[in-house]
């Protein structure tokens, strides 16, 4: 007779052993070990990364390949339009200075912002005479912006060959063609005048009472100043404390109108003995006056 119930295969009847094999038991114990967990989390990735790096580094052609790919990727990113700089914008400068900056800047637009060496460019712009301070930055929209603080001219310096504008610290600002274009600026003359500009400016301040007659300040022998007035009158100032000496001269002039007389030069070089140099006509007149006086006495 056919069996009424479906019989299971003998292999299925035999129950599987619930006991873990020795390997499974040890593996489970290992997996419950905290130090093993730490190793899995930190040690294994570290070893993998180090091993992969060492393997790559040991093959020159692979290394070259990796380097080339890296360069390509870098170039691709740098050439993106988001990083391109199209134009230069200069702020806070006169039109001539803007032209100078454009001429002097060694940059051909468009250029990737990764290729701009802003420090070097800044140094180039800062070398211009008229630039006191400059800051460079790349702004959104691909604009290289240069904010310039210009030097303000305080003096005109006349040398043998040229007329040069100087700022209050004695720094060159720009050469000029004609004095007339900057008539309001005082004139200094002579070699070495550039190095004593602050002193000259103080002298000019003290010389306000004779400002209408002032022609120039002349540097003599690169060590002391002469104040040159109209009619060739001069005030010779000492090397030490010229400002005080000029102030004394101004005081004397204010009291006795000394410079309005026929005087060729007022020599203040020796502090304790100011000396007047008269013009020939005045000397004649002096002699004449003295003679008259002597004659009267003789009589």
């Amino acid at each position: 007779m056919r069996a009424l119930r479906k019989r299971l295969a003998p292999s299925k009847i035999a129950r599987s052993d619930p006991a873990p094999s020795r390997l499974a038991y040890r593996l489970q114990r290992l997996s419950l070990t905290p130090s093993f967990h730490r190793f899995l989390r930190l040690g294994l990735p570290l070893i993998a990364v180090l091993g992969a790096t060492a393997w790559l580094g040991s093959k020159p052609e692979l290394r070259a390949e990796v380097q080339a790919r890296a360069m390509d990727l870098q170039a691709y990113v740098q050439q993106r339009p988001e990083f391109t700089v199209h134009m230069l914008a200069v702020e806070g400068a006169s039109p001539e200075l803007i032209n100078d900056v454009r001429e002097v800047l060694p940059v051909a637009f468009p250029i990737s912002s990764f290729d701009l060496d802003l420090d070097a460019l800044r140094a180039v712009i800062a070398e211009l005479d008229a630039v006191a301070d400059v800051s460079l930055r790349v702004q959104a929209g691909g604009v290289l912006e240069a904010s310039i603080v210009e030097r303000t001219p305080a003096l005109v310096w006349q040398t043998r060959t040229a007329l040069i504008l100087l700022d209050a610290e004695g720094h060159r600002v720009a050469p000029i063609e004609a004095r007339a274009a900057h008539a309001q600026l005082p004139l200094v003359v002579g070699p070495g005048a550039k190095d004593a500009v602050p002193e000259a400016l103080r002298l000019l301040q003290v010389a306000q009472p004779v400002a209408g007659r002032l022609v120039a300040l002349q540097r003599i022998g690169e060590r002391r100043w002469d104040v040159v007035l109209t009619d060739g009158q001069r005030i010779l100032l000492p090397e030490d404390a010229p400002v005080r000496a000029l102030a004394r001269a101004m005081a004397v002039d204010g009291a006795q109108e000394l410079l309005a007389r026929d005087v060729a030069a007022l020599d203040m070089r020796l502090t304790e003995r100011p000396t007047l140099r008269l013009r020939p006509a005045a000397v004649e007149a002096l002699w004449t006056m003295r003679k008259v006086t002597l004659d009267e006495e003789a009589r």
Partner: protein
Amino acid sequence: MKDFCAAQRAMRNIRKAAMQRGVVAVLDIGTWKVACLILRFDGPDLSAEPDGIGAMAGQAQFRVIGAASTCSRGVRFGEIDGMAEAERAIRTALQSAQKMAQQRVDHVIVCFSGAEPRSYGLTGEVEVSDEAVSEQDIACVLAACEMPEFGEAREILHAQPVNFALDHRSGLIDPRGQIGNRLATDLHVLTIEQTAVQNLLYAIKRCDLELAGLASSAYVSGVSALVEDERELGAACIDFGAGTTGISIFLKKHMIYADTVRLGGDHITSDISKGLPVPHAFAERIKTMYGGVVATGVDDREMIEITSETGDWEHDRRTVSRAELIGIIRPRVEEILEEVRDRLLAAGFDQLPSQQIVLTGGGSQLQGLDGLATRILGPQIRVGRPLRVRGLPQAATGPDFSSAIGLCLHAAHPQDEWWDFEMPLERYPARSLKRAFRWVKDNW
């Protein structure tokens, strides 16, 4: 004996290391099941009173974080019978307990019921060296106990001082610091067969574990199933296992006697299996579902279907009344209980002030067992469940887990044993002392 002391000391040190690490496993290797509990020690219980017992009878300092039990294999009469099979059973239990605990354990405390334990009561007496009794005196008096001949290939499992007497004042628990002249002690020594211990050690070692302690399961089930008063006044704990029935007698909170009867629940099952020819597994099933020891009129009418798959229709559809089943079970249970009664009588249990008997273990779940035991053993009988400990799953709170739980308590608060005291100085070999003196004389 000294070697075994050294081994026990080493186990104590391992146990200390395990406590330091905070995790230890307890393993109850029985004939029917291998139970594994993983304990986590959280340090001393801060909520406890400084001199009181504290919450949970002082057991609040540990928590069970993993529990598993598996069908035992390769174990007969509580002894390892097939090494590979037993090792697999231990591995199974330990692995699932570790999985539940999510923690690896390396230290294990083991109890087992077999290996023919024998109890010895020893006495020792010494003069107190100083005015007051010091720890050194206790070590001396323990060492002064005269060791009887244990027999070939037996080792000491427990050696617990149970009583101290100081100049006719007996019943001292802790004589340290008390003033007297003569100190006497009673020492309870439990010896077991050496080969069984060696097999067990080998099985544990093959599971990559370190043994942190050994205990007799008769003792530890008494620790968990007896309440404080019973242990104080005198009680016996009968642990009905599958392969063996353990007996331990407690008095004044100390175990004073332990023994095993090599009969148990498995014998009942095999009786059923032979009596109504059925497979062993089926016999176990009907024993647990319908078993009992007292037949009533209803049991004649309650029929149990015995199905099998031999193909013989008549044989496959037999029925048996519950009374018949009880008729098979009862003689065997009576035999076990009579054997237990004989052992208790031999131990002088009837001399104790209180003769409480607590039945525990898996076999104690048999219906009507307490009634039958009352007739045979004595009037004061109760079925004891183990103490409740923190974190124990519901499935492991039955009386069949009383030895595993007792082992937890024993692991947390081990009883002072002989080897916990320093070996007295005169016990050291005199030669090595002489050599040490000579070394000092030569070098200084």
